[in-house]
């Protein structure tokens, strides 16, 4: 049993590589690559998707995501402030809201809200775009509320005390001192939530829409049905990556710039505060 740590690590790694190689070889031999290539890399089908895949589908994905993110951010801020309120009823409502919408699949929420709103307000200005904005916004808001709450709690207590000592009310201190600093801290996780919402925006295809309202996934699926080729799936996928990969880099850049402040739990931030009593 006298095996050095380093030797054991080397053996484990060798086994891992061996397994990887076997899997790759089996998949490569077993799959019918010719058919895959035919299905996914049909240049005629790909060419036929332009320019609509960009001018309609990509643009709609950006619009739906942007609307949903904006609305979700406002909603998330309100819920976060309610969670931190001194009024117990507000805290309870906000807590229930977060648990409820985090616990449901995004698709169910979008189906319920997106179809429910037009039913509840027939013939009003609450048209498709507004329904989508509210549905996607609610999906994102439950997560964003928790992120924003952690950000607010990560702002050192001394900042609020300084603001209050200058005569600012609780709400003025919140608006002018705490929230700007909280958002600076949570910019990286918020960017990640924007990526998640970009992907979740595909779920609005279940709400049904006219052609000019197609976003990437529905556009790809319609082309798929017409062309009997899988190429549209590949093209739509690439379009998503064009949006999400730069966002991912942005998030990492912001994280590095803010010194990698990680927001996990509110408890962790308590320790980080400058402690006067220890002097």
């Amino acid at each position, binding site marked *: 049993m006298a095996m050095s740590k380093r030797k054991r690590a080397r053996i484990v790694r060798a086994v891992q590589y061996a397994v990887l190689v076997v899997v790759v070889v089996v998949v490569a031999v077993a799959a019918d690559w010719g058919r895959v290539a035919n299905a996914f890399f049909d240049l005629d089908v790909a060419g036929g998707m332009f320019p609509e895949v960009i001018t309609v589908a990509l643009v709609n994905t950006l619009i739906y995501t942007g609307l949903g993110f904006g609305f979700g951010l406002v909603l998330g801020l309100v819920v976060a402030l309610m969670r931190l309120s001194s009024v117990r009823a507000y805290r309870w409502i906000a807590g229930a809201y977060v648990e409820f919408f985090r616990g449901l699949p995004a698709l169910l929420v979008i189906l319920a809200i997106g179809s429910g709103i037009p039913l509840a307000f027939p013939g009003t200005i609450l048209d498709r775009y507004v329904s989508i904005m509210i549905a996607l916004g609610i999906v994102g808001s439950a997560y964003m509320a928790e992120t924003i709450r952690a950000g607010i709690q990560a702002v*050192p207590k*001394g*900042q609020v*005390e*300084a*603001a*209050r*000592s*200058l*005569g*600012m*009310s609780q709400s*003025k201190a919140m608006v*002018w*001192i705490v929230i*700007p*600093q909280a958002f*600076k801290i949570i910019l990286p996780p918020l960017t990640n939530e924007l990526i998640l919402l970009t992907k979740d925006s595909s779920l609005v295809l279940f709400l049904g829409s006219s052609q000019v309202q197609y976003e990437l996934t529905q556009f790809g699926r319609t082309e798929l049905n017409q062309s009997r080729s899988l190429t549209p799936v590949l093209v739509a996928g690439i379009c998503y990556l064009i949006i999400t990969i730069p966002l991912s880099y942005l998030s990492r850049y912001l994280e590095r710039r803010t010194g990698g402040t990680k927001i996990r739990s509110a408890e962790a931030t308590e320790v980080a505060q*400058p402690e*006067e*009593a220890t*002097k």
Partner: protein
Amino acid sequence: MSDEPAVRVTGLAKCFGDLKVLCGIDLSVATGEVVCVIGPSGSGKSTLLRCVNLLEEPDEGSVVVGGVDLTHEDSDIDAARRKIGMVFQSFNLFAHLTVLNNLTVAQRKVLGRDRAEANRVALANLEKVGLLEKANAMPAQLSGGQQQRVAIARALSMGPEVMLFDEPTSALDPELVGDVLEVMRDLADEGMTMLVVTHEMHFAREVADRVLFMDGGVVVEEGPAEQVIGAPEHERTRTFLARVLDPIHRVE
């Protein structure tokens, strides 16, 4: 003017859970007077100061500043705080704002001054603390001593009637202490009413009109600086002063 003091604290008591931190403090600071509070760590000095502008809510007793009873339930605490400047041990400059905006944000959002007026007041106060050239710097770019002088200028920009200082030099490197004390001395010379918690005995001796020694949540001894620091009556005061003035060769 009446002989009502700028600050009058009566029978102040404060507990944190089971811990009794302040056990009936009486204190008054006359207009234009400088009072220094000294005492061992944990004796309740910060808590006393924080009760004066109600950052901590007193359990018992009253705090009257400029003739307004802050502990009365109908008092407008935000309005009262505008007249009470506070300087913290850890500076607490607003990290997301430039030095200039640190000085103007409360002027504009609380006093309703326009940007030009707020800037004018801010720049005058920055000049007073000798940091005019740092107006556009961010707090993180300043040394501790510079940050604390900005914090003083920030409090002064609200035009306070009383200034509270909670160990303003305790978090500073020794060579930066002098600049901050000099600003405070100038302020005292101009006639500002000041309540200062400090361990700087030289400052207390030279600037304070009166010194209070606190221990265990009560005022043990008070009087002119030369008396409390130079010839203390109480054993506890003597022990404390011996430790502060000669930390290496502890007496006994």
